[in-house]
C-alpha cells in the first residue's frame, strides 16, 4: 500500500472514531436546543453520569460492559426526567440568561458531587477482551474498539434518523422544531414530546459517556472539560438536526485528526479555525434553517 494512501486511511478512520463520540454525546443537545430553545450547558453532565453509572453498574452488579452501558443509558435517561420536571420545566418561559445560569450551576454541583462520591481520580473501565487489540479488515488492521465505536455511532445515527423520518412521533418532533405554535395548534402536545426527547437525548449521551471512557478517560471534570467541544458540534451542525450534528461531528472529527497528524504544532487551532470558518459562512450551521 502506498505511503500516502496509508496516511489518508489512518486520518479518516481515526477521525471517524473520534467523530462518533462527538456525535453520540452532542446529538441530544442539538435536538433539545432546537426543540425547546433551552440553553442546556449541563448536557455533558449526563454523559459524565453515564460514564460513572456504567462503571458502578459493572462493579456492583457484576455484569459486562455492553449490558452495563445499556442499563446506564436507561437509568440516566429516567433520572434526567426528574431533573427536567423539577428544574428545567419551570424555566422554559424564562429568559435564556436564567437558563444559562441554571445549567452552569448544575455543572458545578455535579462536579462537586461526583468528586465526593467517586474521588478526583480518573476512572477507567474494563472493556471485554473481544474489543481489545486489532482487527484485520482486509486492507489493513485497525484497533477493534474504534471499529466498534464507529459501528455503534453509525447504527445510532441510522436508528435516530429512521425514527425521526419514518415514525409518527418523529414527524411530530420535526413539526414542533419547525414551527412550534403551529404544531401546538394542530393538537401536538409539545411538552410531552419534549420530555420524551429530553430523556432520549440524555440517555444517548450517557451511553456516549460510557463509550468515551476508554478513549478520553473520565473524571468529575468531564462535563466542563468537553463542554465547548459539544457546543461547537451543535452550532456547526445546526440546531435540531440529526443529519447536521452527524455531518458536523464527522467534519470536525476528521479535520481535527488531520490537523493533529499533519501539523501537531497547530494544537487545538485547527478545530476552532474550521468552526469559525463554517459559522462565518453559515451562521445557522451546516443544516440549520436560515430565517
Amino acid at each position: 500500500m502506498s505511503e500516502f494512501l496509508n496516511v489518508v486511511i489512518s486520518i479518516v478512520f481515526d477521525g471517524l472514531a473520534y467523530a462518533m463520540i462527538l456525535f453520540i454525546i452532542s446529538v441530544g443537545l442539538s435536538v433539545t436546543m432546537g426543540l425547546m430553545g433551552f440553553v442546556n450547558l449541563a448536557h455533558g453532565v449526563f454523559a459524565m453520569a453515564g460514564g460513572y453509572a456504567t462503571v458502578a453498574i459493572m462493579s456492583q452488579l457484576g455484569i459486562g460492559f455492553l449490558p452495563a452501558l445499556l442499563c446506564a443509558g436507561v437509568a440516566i435517561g429516567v433520572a434526567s426526567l426528574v431533573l427536567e420536571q423539577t428544574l428545567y420545566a419551570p424555566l422554559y418561559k424564562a429568559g435564556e440568561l436564567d437558563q444559562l445560569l441554571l445549567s452552569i450551576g448544575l455543572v458545578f454541583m455535579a462536579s462537586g458531587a461526583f468528586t465526593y462520591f467517586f474521588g478526583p481520580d480518573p476512572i477507567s473501565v474494563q472493556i471485554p477482551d473481544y474489543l481489545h487489540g486489532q482487527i484485520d479488515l482486509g486492507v489493513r488492521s485497525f484497533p477493534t474498539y474504534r471499529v466498534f465505536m464507529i459501528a455503534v455511532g453509525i447504527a445510532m445515527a441510522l436508528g435516530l434518523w429512521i425514527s425521526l423520518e419514518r415514525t409518527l412521533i418523529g414527524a411530530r418532533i420535526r413539526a414542533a422544531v419547525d414551527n412550534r405554535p403551529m404544531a401546538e395548534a394542530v393538537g401536538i402536545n409539545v411538552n410531552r414530546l419534549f420530555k420524551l426527547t429530553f430523556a432520549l437525548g440524555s440517555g444517548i449521551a450517557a451511553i456516549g459517556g460510557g463509550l468515551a471512557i476508554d478513549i478520553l478517560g473520565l473524571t468529575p471534570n468531564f462535563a466542563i472539560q468537553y463542554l465547548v467541544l459539544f457546543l461547537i458540534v451543535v452550532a456547526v451542525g445546526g440546531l435540531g438536526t440529526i443529519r447536521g450534528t452527524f455531518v458536523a461531528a464527522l467534519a470536525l472529527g476528521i479535520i481535527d485528526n488531520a490537523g493533529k497528524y499533519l501539523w501537531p504544532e497547530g494544537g487545538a487551532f485547527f478545530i476552532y479555525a474550521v468552526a469559525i470558518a463554517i459559522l462565518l459562512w453559515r451562521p445557522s450551521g451546516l443544516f440549520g434553517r436560515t430565517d
Partner: protein
Amino acid sequence: MKFRTYGYAGALLALSSLPAETLAATVRVGVVLTYTGGAAQLGQQIDRGMNLYIKQHGSELGEHNIELIKRDSKRPGGDIAKTAVQELITRDQVDLLTGFVFSPNAMASAPLVTRGQVPMVIMNAGTAWIPSLSPYIVRVSFTMWQFGHPMGGYAYDSLDCKSAASGYTDYPPGKDSVAAFKHGFERAGGELVDSIPMGSPREVPDFTPFFQRVKDAKPDCFYVFVPGGNHSTAVVKTFADLGMKQAGIRLIGPGDITQDTKLQSMGEDAVGLVTMHHYSADYETPENKAFVQAWKAEYGADTTPDFMGVAGWDGMAAIFHVIRSQNGKIDADGAIQALRGWKFNSPRGPILIDPDTRDIVQDVHIHKVVKSGDRLAIQVVGTIPQVKDPCKALSLGKCAN
C-alpha cells in the same frame, strides 16, 4: 478532608505532663494545593501524604502543635494562588507555606514569599528554575530534567535506541522533559527525528493521530511525556491499540506515564514499558514498605501512594525538621539554613536538599513494568545515584542565568 484546618492535637496530651517552662508553640502552615478541577487528584495525593506524616510522626514535635490552613489554588493561573498566599501571610500569619501543584502558582507567589519572609516548601511544581525566584524557596519534589536527561543517555546506551521520536503535552513541563531527553539522547549519539506537541494539559486528547504519525515515522523509541493524572492510561492504551509494539517501537518516558495510581488500569499492554523516575510504591526498601502499608491502612487497601503522595510526606518531614530545629519559633532565614543540606531517608530513598540551589538531589531509578501475579508491578532495573537537576548543573537554556 472537609474541615478547614487540621490541628494535630495528639501532642496536647504530652503537653499536660510537661513542666511549664518549655514554651509550646502552634506552628501555622499554609497549604496551597489544587483541590478541584482536572488536577484535584494530585492535590489529594499530596494532601494525604502530608496528613499521613503528621499522623505517624506528630508526637515527634514534642510540645509543639502544627496547624494546617488549606486553600484551593483551583487553576494554574497564578492569581488565585497568589491571593491565597497573600491572605495566608498577612491575615493568617502562617509560619511556613507548602503545597503548589502547578509551577505558575509557585512562580506567581515567589515575590510575596520574599517580601513576607515566609519559607516555602514546594511539593510538586517542577519547572527547573523556580527555587531561584526567591531565597526562601526549597523544593522536595523533582525537576523534569532529572528524568528526561538520564533517560536520553540510557535509551541510547542500553535500550538500543538509535533514533527516537518524542511526544509531549504542550506546556512547560512537557517542553522541559523533551528538551532534557533531546540533550541527553543527542549527547549520547542518538537522533531525535520528530517532536510532537500533543494538546493541552486541561483535557485528555485522542492520542491516535499523534501516535499514528510516530508509527509511520518508524523510530526505534518513542519518548512520551504527559502530566500525572488522566493522560497516562490513554497513552498506553493508544500505543497498544495501534500495534506500535509489534511495529518495533519501544515506548519510554519519565515515570509520569507509569504512575502507581494509574498502573493497574493500563492492563497487560503496559508490560515491558521502561521509564525513569524517583519513586514507585513497589520499591522494596523498609522505609517504603512501611510507608505503603501505613497508607493502605489509612486510606484503604485499594489505594496506593504515588510520587505525589511521597512528595507530601517528604515535604512534611522537611517542615517537621524546621520546627524541631527552630524549636517552634520559625524564622525564615533560620529555616532555610536548616534545610540547606538536609538529608532524609524518604520512602523513595535517600534525599538531600542541595545547599547551593535549595533543590532536591535524589536517586533516579530505571523502572520496568512487569507482571507479578495478577497485578502489574514496577521492577527497578538500574539506579543513577544522587542526581542533581541537570538543567542547573549544566547551565542549559533558561537555567543559564
